């Protein structure tokens, strides 16, 4: 059985994510610090909360830095806010992100209703680990007010159209991010959760 950790910033529902991972066959621990040894095959940064409080919750409870914890080998799935933390900074706050993917997080255009909330289509740009077996045009559930603006487009494997092209799935090395919530995206979401588990098993 694959053993995963969810980092809890104390700001919302991680029950659903834990539940979906367990249903996919993983055993899951909830952690609140990076100071204990990393015994996990994969880490999840969930998608609830605000940028600054979440980053602070990690920094204040951990002497160990994120990157020293996961290094180049623990697969990490960042969901929504969790994905946003992969970047250098965010317009949502003043705290620094983990900076494992070049680029920043910017607010969605005010010409659209914000938050971008609901089911939107994926436009698959290129094949990737998380998207294996996922059809182009699949609907996934988004709920967010910010979007990633990667410095290099090659990290984007899928986009979604919301007035602007919203990077929906990003992948770089052991870092996988979704702007939407796979744990809330019905059967398509299940496939993506399973894909992440498959990476963790390797």
């Amino acid at each position, binding site marked *: 059985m694959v053993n995963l950790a969810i980092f809890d910033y104390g700001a919302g529902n991680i029950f659903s994510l834990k539940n*979906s991972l367990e249903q996919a066959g993983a055993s899951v621990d909830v952690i609140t610090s990076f100071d204990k040894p990393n015994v996990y095959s994969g880490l999840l940064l969930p998608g609830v909360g*605000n940028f600054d409080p979440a980053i602070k919750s990690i920094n204040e409870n951990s002497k160990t830095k994120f990157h020293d914890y996961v290094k180049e080998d623990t697969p990490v799935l960042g969901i929504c806010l969790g994905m946003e933390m992969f970047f250098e900074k965010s317009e949502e706050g003043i705290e620094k992100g983990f900076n494992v993917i070049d680029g920043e997080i910017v607010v969605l255009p005010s010409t659209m209703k914000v*938050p971008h909330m*609901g*089911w939107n289509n994926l436009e698959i740009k290129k094949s990737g680990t998380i998207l294996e077996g996922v059809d182009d045009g699949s609907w996934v*559930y988004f709920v967010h*007010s910010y979007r990633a603006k990667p410095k290099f487009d090659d990290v984007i494997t899928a986009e979604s159209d919301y007035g602007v092209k919203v990077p929906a799935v990003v992948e770089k090395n052991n870092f996988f991010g979704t702007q939407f*919530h796979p744990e*809330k995206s019905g059967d398509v979401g299940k496939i993506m959760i399973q894909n992440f588990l498959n990476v963790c098993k390797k």
Partner: protein
Amino acid sequence: MTLTKRIIPCLDVKNGRVVKGLNFESIKDAGDPVELAAKYSNEGADELVFLDITASNEQRETIKELVRKVASVINIPFTVGGGVKSVDDARNILLNGADKVGINTGAINNPTVITELADLFGRQCVVVAIDAKRNYLTKPGVTLFDEGNGKFWFEVFIFGGKKGTGLDAISWAKKADSLGAGEILLTSIDADGTKNGYDITLTKAVVDSVSIPVIASGGCGESSHMVDIFEKSDVDAALAATIFHYNTHGVNGVKKDLREKFISVRL
């Protein structure tokens, strides 16, 4: 493509059972919340709303255990409301598997709680529920409407639609938006339970006044009512209970009807 319109079954829960009433009264039993939730999720519901309809009245907390059970059988977004007054109430609900918290009476009594919740959990977590009803006794400072029976305004009601607040629903929706609400769940007390269709006047007025998504609620008796509200207003989602509970239309059936009328839905 862009966002689809969301179809949201609602579970009004009282004493652990799903119930449904007419104009917020005369309650009848509609089934087990966990079974219904699983069924709707599997049928293609875009989201689920769970309202503990007795919570405000009896001053008790939402049924945590039940929320947990429902959350564990669905894989779609899940909003829980009923009796939420504080950040702690909201946290309790979120920790038990809800994605969003519905707040109604609690926000009227203490509007700053909307901002507190948005700051802590993100505004997408905060669903401000507004129950509104026509009031033909006009007064200054309210948004007036006329449907041919004289001028009226929409008054916000609390405690499950039992108590008028004197507040103008349009102004309150705008205020909730500016305080940090992520979404408005708008119920027409006049339309609720009638099966005569959504309240187009109310829905359109609120949708056009706020910058956040709005869910229309109250009055849906058939799929054509959803078509109607989506065609006549820019509302984002339609909530219904009766048409799903009594198995007259499955969620999937309703969405097929919508697609035939060129409403963008997830099928």
